[in-house]
């Protein structure tokens, strides 16, 4: 299959430039304590990411110049880890999939770097944080590029952990606040749990392939080796006999499940979702870049990258679909109740990622990736808009203390509005096309239970419209509810913040059209090249074959749009709380009596939802406390101090002393006759043994 290797040295520069910038910033500041002037830091970090973006674009042009079946560029550097039968190269691969991701990372990354200049300059909390911030941010871009361009699983794992590390550093960026430090640690540990799955996946894959003599970890080789694995099974241990499919599971299912655990950690799927809402203590541009547009989509990327594996793992794919659907629903419910501007967006991200996994589980890899791209535009826009609100309001994040900001932040309001409309799935906006592609794939999947999954998907798109419209109305419309009512003092942020916002708003509007929507919409869409995105990725991700007619597309679009409209209308009602019409005035009192308990329980539900349905507390009680109890009470005080040191070590010392004191001491009589007697007895024993 690999007919010809197109070597290029371009790829290493795409990856290394941000690393060099991070190293320069980091060494100067961290070790030598010689902070660069701000312009120097800006030039280094924004410049490096900008150049990376341009180089990625050049690489993309090179790539499209090749035949469709033969589209990959390789840049091999050296053998990173080589031991015995194992070898992992440091080698980068650009194919359509990684090209999309690399452009996304460097493009959105560049915009957010520029935006960051504005916000970090306006931020007065930390005087030396500027350079440190850009150092981490560059390091993140580097790690993310390794993740998407790595040509083997181990190199991808390097990026995978690397982005986790940067996320940790940036969540705890304002480390003087203990909550931030805790949130960072929570993110790292939750990601590590996922990483265990990733590592086990690598081990299992490697040793299974070793059995057939194809031990490799590079993607191209894995793809070729797949047929050798498809038929193999793994016996389950007896105590797992209750699981479906016991006593044997297909190997591909097990491996795919391991990697999915990794994806769950990084992409915040249930039950490893708990870190993402807390991660919002990072600076807002970081939330936009890492916790919305790029890093959290790494799980989706991984599944797409291993699409050949997941295609041979039906059972795991079904699990992915259900986990995704439930996560989407769960997170959307929490988002509806949220009060913290950034946390609502975080839950929304979790929910949208859930939708992507739903599509992945149905085999619609290209559709999910399409949504990764459009979601990156929309969510980055929303986060950056939120960031400019938060900045204007002097770090206020509670939407109950906002309202009516439309008048003072007109541009932010408009841009944020574009993001809201796009995410809600208004026709022809970016989110519309990708959501349509995903839901259509779910509808036409030949999998048991796909109707239920489709229903959940539709419901979630309605809830999405509700919570995002609610957010917009609470922030920008109505009356200002903040302290002191000094809203006149707020003013629009500077150009450096508005320009990236504007570009992202344009992308959220026209991004879907640019990437080529489904052919069904062509008569009404000025697209020369329908579904070009899907066809570009076809050699890697396959084509979602479903026989959806144009009418079905339109039907789905109509129903999704009306559900979204209903959601938006509900949000409007909830925000405005219009009074009853005059004619029904006599009914007010009885209605109130009937509705009072409902209202009370509604408030209780809202309060529960706001905590994320107490999952954090549950983990604390069920995992964290028992673990510390085990370590402290059972192991440290019990095993270590009582048994090992107490009974064994000191016990044997005491025994020796007691023996010496009680018995042996009496042998030391000091009488020479006694000693002679013992010598004689001893000599006799020795002689007797020798003569035996």
């Amino acid at each position, binding site marked *: 299959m690999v007919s010809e290797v197109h070597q290029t040295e371009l790829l290493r520069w795409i990856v290394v430039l941000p690393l060099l910038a991070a190293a320069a910033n980091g060494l100067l500041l961290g070790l030598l304590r010689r902070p660069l002037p701000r312009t120097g830091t800006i030039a280094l970090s924004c410049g490096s990411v900008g150049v990376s973006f341009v180089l990625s674009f050049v690489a993309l042009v090179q790539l499209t110049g090749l035949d469709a079946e033969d589209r990959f560029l390789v840049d091999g550097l050296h053998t990173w880890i*080589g031991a015995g039968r194992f070898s992992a190269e440091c080698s980068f691969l650009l194919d359509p999939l990684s090209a999309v991701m690399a452009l996304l990372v460097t493009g959105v990354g560049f915009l957010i770097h520029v935006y960051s200049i504005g916000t970090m300059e306006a931020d007065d909390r930390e005087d030396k944080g500027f350079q440190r911030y850009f150092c981490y941010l560059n390091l993140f871009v580097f790690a993310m590029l390794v993740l998407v361009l790595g040509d083997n699983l181990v190199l991808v794992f390097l990026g995978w952990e690397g982005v986790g*590390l940067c996320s940790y550093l940036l969540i705890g960026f304002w480390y003087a*606040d203990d909550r931030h430090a805790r949130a960072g640690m929570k993110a790292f540990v939750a990601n590590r749990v996922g990483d*265990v799955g990733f590592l086990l996946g690598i081990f299992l894959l490697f040793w299974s392939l070793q059995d057939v003599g194809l031990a490799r970890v590079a993607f191209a080789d894995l793809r070729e080796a797949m047929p050798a694995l498809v038929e193999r099974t793994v016996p389950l241990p007896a105590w797992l006999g209750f699981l479906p499919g016991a006593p044997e599971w297909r190997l591909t299912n097990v491996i795919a499940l391991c990697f999915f655990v990794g994806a769950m950690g990084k992409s915040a799927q249930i039950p490893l979702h708990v870190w993402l809402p807390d991660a919002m203590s990072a600076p807002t541009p970081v939330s936009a870049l890492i916790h919305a547009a790029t890093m959290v989509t790494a799980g989706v990327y991984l599944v797409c990258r291993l699409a050949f594996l997941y295609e041979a793992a039906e059972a795991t794919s079904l699990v992915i679909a259900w986990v995704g659907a439930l996560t989407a629903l769960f997170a959307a419910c929490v988002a509806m109740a949220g009060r913290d501007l950034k946390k609502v967006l975080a839950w929304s991200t979790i929910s949208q990622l859930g939708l992507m996994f739903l599509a992945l589980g149905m085999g619609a890899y290209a559709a999910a990736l399409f949504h990764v791209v459009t979601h990156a535009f929309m969510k980055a826009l929303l986060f950056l808009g939120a960031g400019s609100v938060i900045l204007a309001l002097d770090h206020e994040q509670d939407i109950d203390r906002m309202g009516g900001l439309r008048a003072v932040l007109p541009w932010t309001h408009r841009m944020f509005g574009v993001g809201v409309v796009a995410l809600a799935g208004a026709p022809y906006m970016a989110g519309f096309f990708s959501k349509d592609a995903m839901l259509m794939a779910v509808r036409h999947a030949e999998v048991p239970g796909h109707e239920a999954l489709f229903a959940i998907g539709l419901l979630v798109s309605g809830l999405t419209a509700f919570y995002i419209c609610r957010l917009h109305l609470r922030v920008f419309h109505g009356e200002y509810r903040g302290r002191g009512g000094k809203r006149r003092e707020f003013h629009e942020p500077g150009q450096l913040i508005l320009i990236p916002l504007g570009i992202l708003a344009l992308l959220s509007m026209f991004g879907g059209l640019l990437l080529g929507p489904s052919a069904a919409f062509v008569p009404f869409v000025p697209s020369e090249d329908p579904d070009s995105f899907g066809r570009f990725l076809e050699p890697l991700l396959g084509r979602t074959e479903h026989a959806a007619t144009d009418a079905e597309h339109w039907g789905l679009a109509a129903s999704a749009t009306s559900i979204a409209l209903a959601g938006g209308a509900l949000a409007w009602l909830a925000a405005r709380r219009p009074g009853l019409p005059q004619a029904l005035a006599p009914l007010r009192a009885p209605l109130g009596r009937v509705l009072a308990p409902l209202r009370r329980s509604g408030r209780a539900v809202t309060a529960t939802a706001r905590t994320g349905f107490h999952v954090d507390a549950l983990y604390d009680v069920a995992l964290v406390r028992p673990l510390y109890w085990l370590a402290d009470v059972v192991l440290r005080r019990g095993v270590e101090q009582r048994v090992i040191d107490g009974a064994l*070590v000191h016990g044997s010392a005491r025994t020796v002393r007691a023996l010496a004191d009680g018995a042996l001491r009496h042998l030391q009589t000091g009488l020479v006759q006694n000693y002679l007697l013992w010598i004689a007895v001893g000599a006799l024993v020795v002689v007797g043994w020798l003569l035996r």
Partner: protein
Amino acid sequence: MSEALLTWVVFLPLASVVGLALLHGSLVAFGLSRGLPDVLWRWLALAATVVTFGMSVALAAGYDATDTAFQFVAHRPWLPRWGIHYFVGLDGVGLAMLLLTTFLVPLVLIGSWTGYSRRKGYLMHVLVLETGALGAFASLNLFQFYVFFEALLVPMVFLIGVFGGPLRVRAAIKFFLFTLAGSVLFLVALLVLAVLQQQQFGGVNFDLVAVSGIPLPPILETRVPTVQAPWWQQQTWLFAACALAFAVKIPLVPLHTWLPDAHVEAPTGGSVLLAGVLLKLGAFGFVRVALPLFPVAAQQFAPVLAVVALVGILYGALLAMVQSDLKKLVAYTSISHLGFVVLGLFALNVEGLQGGILQMVNHGLSTGALFLLVGMIAERRDTREIAAFGGVAKPMPVFALFLVLITMSSIGVPMLNGFVGEFLVLLGAFERSAAVGAAATVGVVLAAIVMLSMLRRVLFGPVENPENRGLIDLDRRERAVLVAFVIPIVWIGVHPATLLRRVEPSILELLRVMDVRARASAAESEASASESSGSEAPEADGSSATVPGAAGQRARWLAAATAPAGRPEPAR
């Protein structure tokens, strides 16, 4: 030249101690009552260790990674009557350990430059310890290995007992008794081996590999029975004795309780050497002695030791989680790390062994640096209680940078050294047993919890204790020491081939020797089984039945050694 070089590396530290003492003494004798000034002691001792490191780098540069034989060998009679020779040489494993040791010692001296390095006794003990460790890592004579292995104990006990904290004597005694108990078992195993060799070849030769001119075969050719012998001659028991001795040194749970005490009481430099060098001797003993000599028993015990290592990984991490003393926390993570080392070794495949050996180096670097960092902050505040800190990143940003970086190395973040070692260990362990490999992978999560919560409590959060507000950040000397640690940490993370390439042939050779010896044992036990079933009355004394005349055995060995398939003889 190459023959002398290794000997120079091993003995230069000791020689410089002797030289300095003589110089000091003669100055006193000539009427200078102060003798050699302390400043000169310090500088000369440092110079000696730096030169030692330089020469060991020269050794590494001259090491031929394609050659599986021991290199830089030197062989001199010592007590030839008993087969005890001065015999040194390096393979990849020895080279890695040698480099680690010679790298750490100068940094230890610089690390305590303004503290204990001002005291002559401290310098002397550190340098004697260096020679002891280097001698053990370079030994190719089993008895000589034992001598160095033991000699090392003395300076370490003094480092703890003289220069340690308030409970130093108690900790030193505990440390001494634990390791001595282990060593006695090792000595017994050694003597039994000598007896076996005497029975089979009519003489004793403790050399590990053959040397031209020595008529007796090396001790590695001694057949250690697996069946049909008194119990104390069987591989199982001999391996168990060695394993116990080495397990105390490593240490493996539950023989570890001396370690936290020793670390807590030891001075910073002592802790660095204890973690970086001394603990490695146990694991090194497995590689150099126990695995090649008793391959059948090693295979039998491998699952047991893997589980013990796994328990150590999890147990060490869990206990580290609930420590309130910074140094104790690092000591327990040390136990967890060494669990990874042993897990890798007893995967008994190339990947696991390579990972285990790499992890030995990694542990020396990252834990050594962690102890130094703990020492630096403890020195400033006169306490190691984690609760006394908080928000230290604010007054000490450079310290924070290094602590975060070394922590990341310790918990195995890719691009730094810890990841490569851990990955290979887990990969190797996974092949042997998926369940053990998977369970050990969970240790990676625990390590993250332990170390990150330590970071959070020490570095982050508000500065609540006013004493932390005025902390002074690291000075140039301290920064230089830490930078010296960071360079190999990053290097190994990015380009581990530098080490792996040199270690791999030695590992393959080790596995080959184990395989050959295991086959021979298997053939023998088959033969003896058929023999005993064939003859109605098996001999009461099993050894005389299975051991043919010593002369015949020796002739057979000589024939095998000259055959082309035999082990290549090291050039003299």
